[in-house]
Every structure is written in C-alpha cells, then in structure tokens.
C-alpha cells in the first residue's frame, strides 16, 4: 500500500467518518498532509476539527475509513504506539512533576539511555526558551511558560507530526500574536509537520501553509491562505474566512463563451467571467471597495451609491458600514494612511462605492 503514496505525504486520511450518538462529527473526510508542512484545520465550533485531530492521535476510533501515518495504516494502533504527539488545549502538564520530569517523561517511557534523555530534554527546553527552568514546578509557571513546557514535552519525542489542539486559545491577545510567530519559526527550525486545529481563521491564515476549512463534519476547501481568501469555492468558506459582502442573484450563460450574466437586486445585471446557471452568490471583500465622494462610475467598475451609517475605527484602518438600500449594509475598509488628513468620510455622507469586476467572486454553492 505504501508504494501508492508519494514520498512527501505524511498523513493520509481516507474516507474517515465518526459518529457520537446521533451527531455525525466527522463525515467521510479525505485529505493528505505533506511532510514538513504547517497545516491548519479551521471551522466553527462543532465542525469536527477536534474530533479529526483526536482520531489522528488515536484517542477516538473511526467508524469508517482509515488513517495512514508515514504510509502505515493506523487502524488498531493505540495512541501510545502512534508516531504523533499532541499539544493539548489545556496543556495537560503533569502537576506532580517538575519541568524536566515532564519533558523527559516520554523518553523515560521509551527507555532511552540516560545521557540521551538528558541531552534531548536540554535541547527541547532550549528550543522553547525555557533553559534554566528545569527544576521549576508547573504551578510556578505562567500560562505561556506552561504551554512551552507542553511544546517541549511533545517535540522532545521527535514525532512525525505534532498535533496542536487550539494551542493559543488560552493566551491573551498580545502573547498569542507573539506565540504565533514563534511557532512558525519553531516549525521551520525543527522541520516537524505541524497540524494545528483552531476556530480562529485569522490565526490559521497567519500561521499555516495550507488550510482545510471544515463545516458540519466535512471538508469544504483545502488551499493555501491566499487562495482561500481570494478564491473561496463556496459561500461558507467565503463567509468564514475574513469579512465579505454577499449578494444573492441568478445566473445564465452570456453570449460569449466562458462568461455569465448575473442578475442581482442591488447590482443590476453584471457580466462576469465564469460558468454558472441558476441561483448564485456574488461576493466582494471590504478592502476591494473604493470609496469616493464623486458621483458616477469608472470604466470596468461596479458602482453603488449609499449613505455611510457607521464607522468603526481600528487604528490602521477603518470599517465603513454603508446603507445601500434594502438588506445588509455594505462593508468597506479604508486605510488611514494619512496622519493629518482628517476623516475622509463621516457618517451621513453620500458616497460612491466602486470595485473592479475582477474582484467580484462568483459563488455557485
């Protein structure tokens, strides 16, 4: 079987399903994770991402399908015999052991020679910048330090894949951002495949090389962050990753091949690149929208007129909520690039919102 799988595939999930009572937690999921990759599983809570991670770790057994790690079928292989290690959401540091004993636990279980245990423990603690904390007790450490202990304890095992279950959710915003960067660096340094589970799409975008978006137990899209953001394949992904404006419409083929005419209530009839028929959704990201006070449209632009309702200030940028008639207000983002320029728009202003037709996404699902 191993010959079928290319050398750089480290995890192969084949049609895996898992049910808890009547809840279909994971529904016929198949995917491949490459060696050395920083891969993220994202989705709203209850989408099955954590269950999938626990299936990989061996804490749950699939009802159907199988999992291959390094080409080896994991069916019937218990958690303690799998070449993966997990970073738990609660860190799961053994409270009755000091930092050093925590980190060397797995190596002692594996009955490695004493010298090797000491050397590898020291190396792992150095990697997570905890050298000098060997004799510290877990309750003397901060949350961030405890997480580093958990990270060292898993990395010291040199697993084929490190599974990270919502690793940053318990940290405060500032520390979380620092830790995100550090984890990316760490992953590059050790070269171990990281598989992270998170509900925070921005965390996944900033850390991962590839992301799988899950919804109701199944995978909706697997793509690099840029592609996921700029070319989502369905309404759910478009809406879950980042912010987006959605317009319902109907499509029929245009006269020219490879183009469609889409009719939406707010945007009128648009001719776009693509291939669709029936009900579709048009989508545009807020930062693609250009706001101006001059009336009238530009060539190749989609144009709307509206009244600014609210402005949410974020420092570097501001979010505008523009009333464009019925339904949801339009979201637009402007960069505050000029310090002394004063506000370019104010609530109550009548503005023109325009964006290029190529920035419009045509979503059929």
């Amino acid at each position, binding site marked *: 079987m191993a010959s079928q799988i290319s050398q750089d595939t480290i995890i192969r999930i084949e049609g895996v399903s898992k049910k808890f009572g009547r809840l279909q937690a994971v529904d016929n999921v198949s995917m491949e994770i490459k060696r050395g990759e920083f891969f993220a599983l994202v989705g709203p809570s209850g989408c099955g991402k954590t269950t999938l991670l626990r299936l990989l770790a061996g804490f749950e057994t699939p009802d159907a399908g199988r999992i291959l790690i390094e080409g080896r079928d994991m069916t019937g292989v218990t958690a*303690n015999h799998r070449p993966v290690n997990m970073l738990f959401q609660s860190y799961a540091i053994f409270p009755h052991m000091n930092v050093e004993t925590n980190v060397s636990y797995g190596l002692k*279980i*594996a009955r490695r020679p004493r010298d090797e245990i000491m050397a590898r423990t020291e190396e792992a603690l150095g990697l997570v910048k905890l050298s000098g904390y060997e004799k510290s007790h877990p309750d003397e450490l901060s949350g961030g330090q405890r997480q580093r202990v958990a990270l060292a304890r898993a990395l010291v095992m040199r697993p084929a894949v490190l599974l990270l279950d919502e690793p940053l959710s318990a940290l405060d915003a500032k520390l979380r951002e620092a830790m995100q960067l550090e984890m990316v660096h760490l992953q590059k340094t050790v070269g171990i495949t990281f598989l992270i589970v998170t509900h925070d799409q921005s965390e996944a975008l900033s850390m991962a090389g590839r992301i799988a978006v899950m919804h109701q137990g199944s995978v909706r899209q697997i793509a690099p962050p840029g592609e996921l953001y700029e070319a989502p394949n369905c309404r759910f992904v478009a809406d879950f990753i980042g912010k987006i404006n959605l317009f319902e419409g109907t499509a029929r083929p245009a006269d020219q091949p490879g183009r469609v005419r889409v009719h939406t209530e707010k945007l009128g009839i648009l001719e776009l690149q693509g291939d669709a028929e029936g009900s579709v959704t048009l989508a545009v990201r807020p930062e693609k929208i250009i706001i101006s006070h001059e009336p009238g449209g530009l060539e190749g632009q989609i144009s709307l007129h509206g009244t600014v309702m609210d402005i949410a200030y974020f420092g570097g940028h501001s979010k505008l909520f523009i009333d464009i008639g019925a339904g949801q207000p339009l979201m637009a983002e402007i960069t505050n690039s000029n310090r002394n320029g004063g506000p370019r728009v104010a609530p109550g202003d009548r503005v023109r919102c325009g964006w290029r037709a190529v920035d419009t996404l045509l979503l059929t699902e």
Partner: protein
Amino acid sequence: MEPWRKAPAVFVANLLPPAAWLGVFFVLPLSLLWLYSFGDKVGITGIDINWTLANYARAADPLYLGILIKSVWIAGAATLTCLMIGLPVALAISFAPRHVQPWLLLLIILPFWTNLLIRTYALIAVLRTNGHVNYVLEWLWSAGDGLLNLIGLGGYQILGTGFTPWSLLYNDAAVVTGLVYVHLPFMVLPLYAALYRLDRSLIEASLDLGAGHLRTFFYVIAPLVLPGIASGVIITFIPALGAYLTPDLLGGTDSQMIANVIERQFKAANDWPFGSALSFLLMYITFFGLAVRSLLAGRRGGGVSA
C-alpha cells in the same frame, strides 16, 4: 470572616442550636467518659474520680495490648483489601459513560439502605458450613469428581474421598470479609471523587507520550489521586478499627476486637473507668491516623483531593 461582626445576633442564632446539640450529646458525655477514665470503680455503680492512671496502665497489659494490636491488624487488612477492590471499582465507575455513573454509585451505596445486623446475618448464611459458598464448592467438587470418573481417573481419589466443607465463619478471615463488605463504599466514594476531578487530558497526554495503561496508572493517575487514596484509607480504617458487630457475629473466640472488649467493660464487667480508658486510647489512635492524613495532604498540595 468579617460579616458575623456586623450581625452578631444572626450569627449567634445560627450557631446556638448546633452548638447546643453538640454540647449536650457529644462534648458532655465524652467529657464524662474522659473523667471516668481517671477514676476507680466503687461498689456497683459508683465511680471515684481520683486522677489515677491505673486504667491506662492496665490497657498496656499484654492481654489487652494484644487485642488492640490485633484490632489494628484486622482493620488494616480489611482496609487494604478494600483498597484493592475499591480502586478498580472506582476507576471503572469514573470511566463509565457520564449518564451511567450515578446508577453505578447508587449500586455502591445500596447496601447502606439495609440494617447492618441484617446484612451481617445474610453474610453468615453465605459463609456458614452449609451456606451458599460451600454449596457452590460442593457442586464444583462433584462436577470435578464426576469428570475424573468420566476420564477414568476416578479410582485415584485426586480430590479426596468426599467433599469437606470449608470453615469460612468464626475466624479472622470471616471478620476481615465482613469488614470489607461493610466498609467498601467508604473506600469507593472518596476514590471516585478524586478520580472524577482528575483532568482526563493528563491521562491522554501520558498515553500520547507512549505510556501504556498500566504505566499511566502508576506514574500519573495514582500519584495524582493519592490524597483521595489517603482519605479512603483513613475513612475506612477508622470505623473498621472500632467495629463491634462484625467481629461479634462473624469472629471466633480469639478474633474479638477492641470494641468488643470495651463493650464488655461497660456491660458484663461493669468497669466503666477501664472501658472509658480503652475508648480514649482507641480515639487517640484515630486522631493519630487523621494527623498523618493531614500531613500527607499538606505535603502534596498539587494533587487532587477528595
């Protein structure tokens, strides 16, 4: 602890009934016994409290000291057996599905709903010479004997010429069995409480790091529920040490425990001062056990207590 200063009347009103109850029914009788233990018996009912230590000195008599040591030994054996049985039971309950756990705990507590005397008599019916255990053993013997006959080995009398019932009653083993049966819930409940609070991800982390179930139990679960184990041991040991009914009904002539001796002093021997002294000695041993338990709990602050 400040609010009571602001409303002393409410504080006193709340404290008074339980304090009065404890004073009248606990402190007062106990103080009387404590005084009696320093007295001499005068006539049939009189007690002369003259601060003698003779009663305590008499307790050191090899006869009573032997019984005291034996009581500690039997209670200890019963406690250890309870731990051996109770730990797997508590583990099994704590790993059962959440909605089944209350029902399993109910099964553990169920025997408490029946009178101790009746339960002990039921145990006699099980253990006696023509009791249920011996019925089963006899059935097994005849089945084995029949099988040997069948395969042609009947003539060798490998299993003896006939079945001799085992004497399971009126010895130390019977007392230990009875104590284990009665005190098992005292062991299971604190163990379950400690296991219930144990973070499951710690067990998963241990498995994840390559440890099997056995090593996970000894390296992670057992050290973390040690305070629960200590609670279970103390809570089981104390009542087992003072057990009266079980050794009285199930024990033989030489397997009486200290509580039986105390009972005799108050009734048959009519020697209240000596009975009181023995009672207080028993209580001091109990206090010692509790002190050890507190020390253990204080030293291991990080664990999961019951």
